[in-house]
């Protein structure tokens, strides 16, 4: 194609987005790294250069290990559930049966509703004299401090995250299922394969890339959990529900320990980047090709 545009044209088109990204992304990105080498704990106005002291401090802080443990719990509980149950539901919904649209709308509803409202709704379910403890009583189990007992609180929060994510991942799987050739299922039916064999031998291998994609995106969002914690527990009781982002928020905006918070942010950055690189160069290969 002939070149109909001037030399400057491409840059003129890029400049508006470029300026916004520069001010609100690239400068803060490098500033985060820079700030992490300064000590703000004495004065917020006169920070001292402290090298890697913030990082050393973090690795000596038991709260950090608690926070990382909570993240690991998220990864080993929420991620596998979010990678499998939505797939199962998508397979069920991907049939010609009555009421499919209604099911889709209802199951997708938690995705649309604000996380703040969802967290409030769950806080109400989890109340000491709430409806869940009534169910416990019905089954002759002792009442639980869903959000007040350090043993259980993190699981209660994880349940909310799972509940809010199921519809989202189901829709991703549903789109992927449309690409599975129907003939393969017909072949299975002729062979008399049952539901599980059919889907384990045809569906799962066929949509493996999507399963991998869902695993990475749900892992990345697990590391960015904030609102659930802020609304329901504020990280308590006894740090038992503190997540990485909540910890950064607390250090930065409540303790005003900007250096420590930034070092923690760099740690988050590194972890998320590893997952994202995997995602971009392995699972979503092609989507971002030049």
């Amino acid at each position, binding site marked *: 194609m002939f070149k109909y545009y001037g030399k400057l044209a491409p840059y003129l088109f890029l400049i508006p987005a470029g300026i916004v990204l520069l001010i609100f992304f690239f400068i803060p990105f490098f500033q985060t790294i820079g700030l992490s080498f300064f000590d703000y704990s004495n004065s917020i106005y006169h920070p001292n250069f402290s090298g890697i002291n913030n990082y050393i401090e973090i690795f000596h802080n038991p709260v950090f290990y608690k926070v990382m443990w909570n993240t690991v719990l998220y990864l080993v509980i929420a991620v596998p559930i979010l990678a499998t149950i939505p797939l199962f539901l998508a397979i069920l919904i991907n049939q010609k049966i009555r009421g499919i649209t209604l099911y889709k709308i209802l199951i997708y509803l938690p995705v649309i509703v604000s996380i703040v409202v969802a967290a409030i709704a769950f806080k109400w379910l989890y109340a000491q004299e709430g409806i869940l403890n009534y169910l416990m009583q019905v089954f002759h189990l002792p009442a639980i401090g869903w959000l007040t007992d350090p043993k259980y609180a993190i699981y209660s929060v994880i349940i909310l995250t799972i509940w809010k994510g199921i519809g989202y991942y189901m*829709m991703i799987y549903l789109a992927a299922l449309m690409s599975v050739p129907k003939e393969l299922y017909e072949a299975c039916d002729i062979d008399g394969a049952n539901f599980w064999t059919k889907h384990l031998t045809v569906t799962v291998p066929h949509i493996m890339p999507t399963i991998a994609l869902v695993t990475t995106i749900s892992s990345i969002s697990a590391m960015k959990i904030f609102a659930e914690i802020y609304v329901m527990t504020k990280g308590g009781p006894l740090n038992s529900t503190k997540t990485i982002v909540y910890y950064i928020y607390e250090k930065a905006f409540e303790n005003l320990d900007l250096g420590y918070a930034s070092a923690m942010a760099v740690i988050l950055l590194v972890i998320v980047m590893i997952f994202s690189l995997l995602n*971009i160069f392995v699972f979503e290969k092609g989507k971002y090709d030049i």
Partner: protein
Amino acid sequence: MKLNLKNIPTHLILIIVSLLSIFPFIWLLSTSLKGAGENIFAYPPTIIPNDFTWANYAGVWQKVDLMRYFINSMIVAGGTVLLNLILSSLAAYPLARMDFKGKKITFFAILATIMVPFQAIMLPVYLITLKLHLVDTFGNVMGFIGLIMPFAVSAFGIFLMRQAFLAIPKEMEEAAIIDGCNVFQVFWKVLLPMVKPTLAVLAIFTFIGSWGEFLWPSIVLTKEAMYTLPVGVNNLQGMFSSNWRYIAAGSIISTIPIIIFFLAMQRYFISGENEGAVKG
């Protein structure tokens, strides 16, 4: 379609999952409709209120300026959508259609932004926003700009628009050039009208994302009159400490607009065509 006996287990599972999906809201709704004469902690719990009343709604509506929060959310979400549409399509055009020096590095720079979560850079973003006076202490307009700007453009939007431009046949541009259009007219009069469906998708998903955003507004906002819905609703907890009837009523009211939006636009969400377009 007639009811097939074979499908009963499928329906059973889907009904249970659907009920689990909406039960937390149903329970909140039920609580919000219970009058002072009914114990909201009663065992066994009652879903249908015995002492039915709208009073909690009237009460919370009077004490909290939910309408204000709604308007604020509309301004922020509207501004964010508008800027995303403009900035993303502008930036996507040369990336899809032009050759220029530095294209590769521009491309990777934009790609890099996908990898960095906002949460990791929010502190310096806040410091910069303060320095630029884009906070509500310098006036409401400045406050709104500060709420919008960090989300004014996204790599997701740029790549989405780029894909849309790539799908347009080059002959369209060539014809326009021959007819005497300059590069801006090509963009504005030829290309943009052809990607309207993609613009709609970008608008809808940006709107949902912006509407639900909680972290950033709860960092920058200082004035209650500037609260967006999520921040305002979270604040109900503090205002009515243990008055769950009011908290529930306020939460339900705040959810109505987005549910209407969702039902009106449902085909964009549940058709399966725009899978993975946004993570709320």
